[in-house]
C-alpha cells in the first residue's frame, strides 16, 4: 500500500466557485435576451432515456424526445415534470423537495451529474440529454438502484460517537473553528452524484467512494470524538478499498451540488493516515 500523499494541485479542473460564477453570467445574458415571462411559442427540447423491464416495447432502452414550453427560470426538473404531466404520465424519475436538499433527483444531464431541480435549462445546450446516473443499475427510465450507495455510506459507521457525554442538561462544547473545519463535510445530501462520476468507483465496486469518505471525514475531524474512535475510523478509511484508491481526479468535487471539497477531504484523511503510521515507527 502506498503511503504517499499525491499532490492536490491540478490546474485543469475548474473549482466550484468559478463554475458557479460562469453559470451565473450565462444565465444573466440569457435573461436579458428573453424579456417576456413565457417565451411565446418557444420550447425546450429534451432527449430522455427510457427503459422499463416489464413493458415489452420499453425493454429495449431508447431515447424519447419532448418539446416542452419554455419559461423563464425553468429548471431541468420543471421541464421533466412538464413532459410527464403534459405528454407521458409513464415517464419516471425521483424528485421531492425541488430545492436541492433531498438529493433524490441527481441525473446525468448533458454528460454530467447534476441535480435536475437546481439546473437551469438556459445554462444547457439543446437538445438537453437526460439519462440516469451512470454506473448504477437502472430500475426504470431515470430511476437507478441506490442500494449500493447506501451500503457504502453505512459502512463507514456514519454516526457521532463520542467517548463520554456531559450531563443531560449540558452541552458538549465545540469551538467555532472546529465547526468551521467540518462544516462543508456536513452538507452532503446523499445524492450520489460524486460516486457516479468517479472512475475508480466505476471499476471497483468495493471502493468506499467520495461521499462515504467525506462522511468519515465529518466525524474523524470532529474534536469531540475520542482518540480510540478516531483510530477505528482511520482503520475503516485506510482499508484496501478506502482512501488509497482515490487518484485525485477531482471529478467528484466537480459535480458535487453542495460544493463540498471532496478530493481535499479525502486527501486530508490520507494525511492523517500517514501521520498515524509514522507514530508507530
Amino acid at each position, binding site marked *: 500500500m502506498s503511503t504517499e500523499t499525491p499532490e492536490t494541485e491540478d490546474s485543469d479542473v475548474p473549482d466550484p466557485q468559478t463554475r458557479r460564477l460562469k453559470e451565473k453570467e450565462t444565465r444573466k445574458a440569457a435573461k436579458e435576451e428573453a424579456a417576456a415571462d413565457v417565451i411565446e411559442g418557444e420550447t425546450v427540447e429534451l432527449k430522455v432515456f427510457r427503459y422499463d423491464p416489464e413493458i415489452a416495447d420499453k425493454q429495449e432502452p431508447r431515447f424519447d424526445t419532448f418539446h416542452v414550453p419554455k419559461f423563464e427560470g425553468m429548471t431541468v426538473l420543471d421541464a421533466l415534470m412538464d413532459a410527464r404531466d403534459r405528454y407521458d404520465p409513464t415517464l419516471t424519475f425521483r424528485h421531492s423537495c425541488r430545492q436541492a436538499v433531498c438529493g433524490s433527483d441527481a441525473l446525468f444531464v448533458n454528460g454530467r451529474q447534476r441535480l435536475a431541480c437546481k439546473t437551469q435549462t438556459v445554462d444547457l445546450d439543446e437538445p438537453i440529454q437526460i439519462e440516469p446516473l451512470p454506473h448504477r443499475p437502472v430500475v426504470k427510465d431515470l430511476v437507478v438502484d441506490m442500494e449500493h450507495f447506501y451500503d457504502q455510506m453505512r459502512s463507514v459507521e456514519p454516526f*457521532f460517537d463520542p467517548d463520554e457525554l456531559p450531563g443531560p442538561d449540558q452541552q458538549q462544547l465545540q469551538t467555532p473553528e472546529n465547526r468551521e473545519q467540518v462544516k462543508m463535510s456536513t452538507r452532503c445530501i446523499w445524492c450520489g452524484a460524486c460516486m457516479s462520476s468517479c472512475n475508480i468507483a466505476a471499476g471497483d465496486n468495493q471502493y468506499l467512494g467520495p461521499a462515504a469518505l467525506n462522511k468519515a471525514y465529518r466525524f474523524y475531524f470532529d474534536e469531540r470524538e475520542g482518540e480510540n474512535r478516531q483510530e477505528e475510523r482511520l482503520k475503516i478509511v485506510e482499508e484496501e478499498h478506502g482512501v488509497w484508491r482515490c487518484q485525485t481526479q477531482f471529478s467528484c468535487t466537480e459535480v458535487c451540488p453542495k460544493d463540498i471539497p471532496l478530493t481535499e477531504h479525502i486527501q486530508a484523511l490520507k494525511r492523517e493516515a500517514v501521520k498515524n503510521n509514522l507514530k508507530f515507527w
Partner: protein
Amino acid sequence: MYEHDVLVVGGGGAGLRAAIAAHEEGADVAIVSKIHPVRSHTGAAEGGINAALQEDDSWEDHAYDTMKGSDYLADAPAVETFAQTSPEEVIQLEHWGMPFSRNEDGTVMQRPFGGLSYPRTTYAGAETGHHLLHTLYEQVVKRGIDVYQEWFVTRLAVTDEEDPEDRSAHGFVAIDVKSGEVAGFKARNGVILATGGAGQAYDHTTNAVSLTGDGISMAYRAGVPIEDMEMIQFHPTTLPSTGVLITEGVRGEGGRLFNSEGERFMFEYGYATNDGELASRDVVSRAELTEVNEGRGINDEYVYLDMRHLGEERIMDRLENIVHLAEDFEGVNALEEPMPVKPGQHYMMGGIETNEHGQTCIDGLYAAGETACVSLHGANRLGGNALPDLFVFGANAGRHAAGVDLGDPMIPVGPDDDAERADVDWPVEPGAVEPVVEEPAADGGVTDPAAVVETAVEAEKARIDELLSREDGVEHMEIRKKVQQAMTEWVNVFREEEGIKKALKEIREAREMYSDVYVTDKSRTFNTDLQHTLETESVLDVAESIAMGALARTEFRGAHWRKEHQERKDDEWIKHTMLSWNDGEPEMWYRPVLLEGEDTEWEPKERSY
C-alpha cells in the same frame, strides 16, 4: 406479511425520533417510508429550533409566546409539555452530534425569531432541518433500526366496530414502489403515523411534492377525527416562481421588507408598529398581500425582502444557504439585490387529533409531527416551533407505543356523544361520492390481528388491480390541478364565504372526476403514476376538510381571516373544529380549547406585535 412491535410510517424528523424512542424502550421497530428517510422534507427546514436553554429564559415564557402566537387556540397541556421538554430534546440532539452554529465559548447559538419574546431559536446555519434530519437518521443507523424505504403506505388495518373509539389498529398495507408488490405490515404494539404536511393541496407551497397528506387521509378514513384543518399557515417569504422558502432567519437577523415605493410597510402602514418584520407569520402575510392588492406590490405579485445591509460576512456566516437558494431558484444575487417574496402555503396547524402521548382515539394508532394536531400551534404556529414539536411528541408517541406508561393524558381524544354539532349549510354534499361499504378495513367481526391486516391487503389489492385495469378516464394531474387552483383562489390567506363555497363545489366536482381516474402506466415497476393517483385521493380529503373548516369558522383568528367576520369571537370560538369521516359522510363537531394545564392557565388577550 412483515411484523414488528412498533411500525412508524414516515422517515422525517417525527418518524425518526419516534422510532429511536421506541427502540430505546426495547421495542422491535421498523420505519416504513415512501421516500428514503434522508429525502424527507424535514431536511428543507432552514431557520431553527426553539427551546428555552438560557438561564434568563424560561419554559413559561416559551409557553406564553406559543399560546399568544396560537391566538388562544392551543391546548394548554400540549403547550406545557412542549415548552418544558424542548430544552432536553435539543440538548439530546446536540449530544447526537447535530452541528449547531456555535458561540465563541463553544455553546450553541440562538437567534431571534418572529413572535418570540426572547432569542431562543437554536440553528445550524440556514440549513437546520438538513442537519437535524441527517443527525437523527445517523442515530437510526447506529441502532440498526429496520427501514423499509420507498414503501408507500396506502391503507390502515383497523377493526371495524361501529364506534371508532372501540376500534384498534393492527398495521397497514403498503406498496413496495420498486417492485409494485402489495404487502401487509402487522404491528404487535402500535402504528405511528408521521407522514408530514399536505402542501400539495395548494399550487404555491414551500412543501415537497411528496407532501400529500396521506396520513391525515388514512386516519380520517379509519375513523379518527381531524382537527382545526382550516388553520393553514402561509409563510410570508417564499420565492414567487417556485415557492422555495426564504427563512424567517433573514428577518431575524435584521432583513427588511419593502414595497414598490421603497417603504418599510410593516411600520409605515401600521401593520406591526412594534415588531415590524418580526411580527408573526399571519400578520406579515396579510400585510404583504394588502400591499400588493393596493397597488404597492412589484409586478402586482410580490414585495421585496432586503438583507444587503447585513453585510456579506454576516450573511455568508449565518444565511449562506439563502444566497444559493435565491441564486439557483430565482436567479437573484441576494448580496447585491433585494429578493422578491410572496406568501405561500407552508404548514398545517391542524391534522390528526392526538393527545400529548401521541395517541389517537383508535387503540394502537398514534400520530406525530406535522400530520398530527396535539393542538400546540392553534391558529398560528411560531417559526421554530415545529421542529421541537417533532421531538417532544414524536418521542412520546414512540415511548407510549413501546409500552411505557406515560400517565393519564389531559387532552381528550375521540368523538364525544354530547359534543356540540356544527350547524353549517354545506353548498354541496361533502365526502364519499358513492356509498361506502367496507370502510374502514376489516369486515364485520374480524378480531384476529393478522386477519385484520390480511383483509386490508385483499381490499387494497383489489382496488389497485381495478385502477390499473381501467383503460380510459381522467388523469390524476387534471384532478389535482383543479383542487390546487380552487384552494389557491378561494381558501388562501384571505377567505370569504362565497369563495369558500365555490371551492367546495370545485372539490366536489374533482371528487366525482376521481371516480373515473385512471392510471396510464401499467407497469408494476416504480409506478409513480399509480402512486400520484393514490396520493391525489389524500389531497382531495385534505382540501375538502380545510374548506369545510374555513366555512364553519365564522370569525377571524390567527391564520384564518374571514372577510365577513373581521373580529376574533372569543365567546363563541375558543373551540376546535373537528371533522369525522363517519364511513364516508363527514360530520363536523366542536371541542372546547383547554386553556388550563397542570401549571398554567391562560386568559385570551389581544395579540399585538
